[in-house]
């Protein structure tokens, strides 16, 4: 009966397996929920089929799609809101720009739709603070209804809880793996890059070995071993200034996540492309810079290299000597990047610009080529893939 739904989920590349489907069937069979209630079925299938909050939003969308038209028979008491109220409200709240945008999107009728929807959604969240509808009062929307505490609509609380289908609310949209980035999520993504090893001073008692050796020799023979540690070592290069200003927040987050994740991490800044020097402090970049040669000589080749930058510049800045916008570079950026890649086998480029634009930017294509396609978008998914690549 739900086979189609299951295949819809599969098609939307949600990681669902037969085992989970059978589990759901078993639960239905055992009457965990009343099978005539769509909401309960939604909750149950979500709990059985989705195992990671990243996929909740996708699941909601597929569910909405698969069971379109399947409404709650008793929940259909959507309150009509007079058109002119909505129109007045639209005029009150939309800037000229937005009005224009809506005109271009399909005019007022469409706007009415949206506003209606918004109003429906608002019913439950009446104290939301920054949202614009409250149920503090009972007067129905009087006198164009604007006051600092919000517009009031005569709506009894709780009466209409089911007007909006739960899955259509898409409450988990910002947990979707393709969208959100927070330090926490970055850290999880970075954790792919781990290689535990016992190295260094022997500080832990190796119990098994001690027992074995004691039994073998006939007297107590204590064996020690080094502690288990993540031995991944990372060099991070950040592009700063210019077009990167728009991406400061995400870079900050990546930086702070990387800092706590990797014990052995060094970071450097560069501008647009790698040339003969990098720096560690943006305020003193001209006085206190570090020769790129020194970097190449200081850090052994088992370091993993991560470049972060939008790779958006004039192609000359990469391919020609003297192409840099800031100073006369004797050797081209390409030479330096290739040099870097020759030393460090594991290197990738993270790009904060969405992947679909890459092909249209000449310099991005060039760098991607230099990195033999090891360029990844700066999203959770991207970092995830990048870390797998670095682990190879």
């Amino acid at each position: 009966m739900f086979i189609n739904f299951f295949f819809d989920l599969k098609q939307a590349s949600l990681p669902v397996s037969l085992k989970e489907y059978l589990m759901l069937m078993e639960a239905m069979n055992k009457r965990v929920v009343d099978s005539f209630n769509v909401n309960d079925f939604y909750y149950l299938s979500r709990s059985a089929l989705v195992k990671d909050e990243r996929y909740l939003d996708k699941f909601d969308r597929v569910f909405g799609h698969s069971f379109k038209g399947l409404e709650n028979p008793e929940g259909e008491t959507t309150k009509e809101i007079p058109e002119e109220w909505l129109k007045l409200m639209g005029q009150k709240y939309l800037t000229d720009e937005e009005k224009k945008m809506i005109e271009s999107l399909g005019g007022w009728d469409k706007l009415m739709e949206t506003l209606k929807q918004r109003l429906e959604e608002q019913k439950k969240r009446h104290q939301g603070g920054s949202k614009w509808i409250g149920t503090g009062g009972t007067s129905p929307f009087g006198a164009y209804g604007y006051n600092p505490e919000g517009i009031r609509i005569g709506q009894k609380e709780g009466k209409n809880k089911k007007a909006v289908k739960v899955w259509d609310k898409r409450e988990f949209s910002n947990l979707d793996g393709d969208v959100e980035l927070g330090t926490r999520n970055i850290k999880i993504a970075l954790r792919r890059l781990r290689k535990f090893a016992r190295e260094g001073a022997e500080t832990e008692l190796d119990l098994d070995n001690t027992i074995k050796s004691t039994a073998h020799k006939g007297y107590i023979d204590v064996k020690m071993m080094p502690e288990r540690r993540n031995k991944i070592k990372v060099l991070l290069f950040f592009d700063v200034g210019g077009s990167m200003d728009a991406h400061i927040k995400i870079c900050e987050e990546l930086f702070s996540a990387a800092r706590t994740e990797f014990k052995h991490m060094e970071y450097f800044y560069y501008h647009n492309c790698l040339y003969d020097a990098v720096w560690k402090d943006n305020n003193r970049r001209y006085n206190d810079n570090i020769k790129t040669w020194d970097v190449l000589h200081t850090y052994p080749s088992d370091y993993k290299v991560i470049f972060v930058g939008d790779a958006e510049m004039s192609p000359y800045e990469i391919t020609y000597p003297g192409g840099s916008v800031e100073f006369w570079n004797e050797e081209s950026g390409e030479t330096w990047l290739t040099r870097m890649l020759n030393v460090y086998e594991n290197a990738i480029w993270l790009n904060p610009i969405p992947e679909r634009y890459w092909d249209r930017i000449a310099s991005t294509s060039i760098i991607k080529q230099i990195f033999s396609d090891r360029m990844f978008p700066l999203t959770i998914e991207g970092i995830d893939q990048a870390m797998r690549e670095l682990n190879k």
Partner: protein
Amino acid sequence: MKFEGTSSYIATEDLKVAVNAAITLERPIIVKGEPGTGKTMLAHEVAKSLDAEIITWHIKSTTKAQQGLYEYDAVTRLRDSQLGDEKVKDIKNYISKGKLWNAFESDKRPVLLIDEIDKADIEFPNDLLLELDKMEFFVYETGETIKAQNRPIVIITSNNEKELPDAFLRRCFFHYIKFPDPNTMEEIVEVHYPDIKKDLIQEAFKIFYDIREVPGIKKKPSTSELIDWLKLLMTDDVDAKILREKDPKKLIPPLHGALLKNEQDVHLFERLAFISRRENENVE
């Protein structure tokens, strides 16, 4: 056996469905969610509402799966053998039971809480696959098989610090506790402080959700922080009027230390308050 929430714990509809599915199908349930949304509490409340014993197993970075089953104390046995202790002849004396063993032995169906499973090593969940699936394990030292008399209700919490293996996830139900909406939040507060003033709550909520929506805030305040803050407001007997204060000079809420736990966030908040103050003055 059905879980319906308790007088001290507000369970949303979807949470109830998920928990009941796990109870009926005798499978573990994994609970995730923002810190402070009551993941650990859930297990205790389920136990309370079903009148079952709760067995908690707190996971640390050093915890091994084997420790949940049993541990064989080889060192003590070695020492005893050198002293010629009689106990040494029976290996059972040196096997100490783990939490899983305890849960399997229980006469009545217990609730087993495996708290913060993501703290352990990546392989940890895989090592428990069979044990949680079949609810039995084999003790090599004595050659006996321990089988659950009553399959315990297994509740596993995770803070998402590590990804759990797919094979493990496939065998479990999953629930993500989302941050409560104001209605649910009101019920939660009601449960904790039944005699709090209504208008105080209204205003406090407004501030609380406003703070959560401040862009760029590093650590959003959670339910438990709201409850602490309300407690402070109540003990200080702060009037709702003060919270409603629109005077830009007093934009920072009283006792904000309970909500903002990070000095960058406090700075950010103060800066925003400062900007809005300046804007207001310009208007005047």
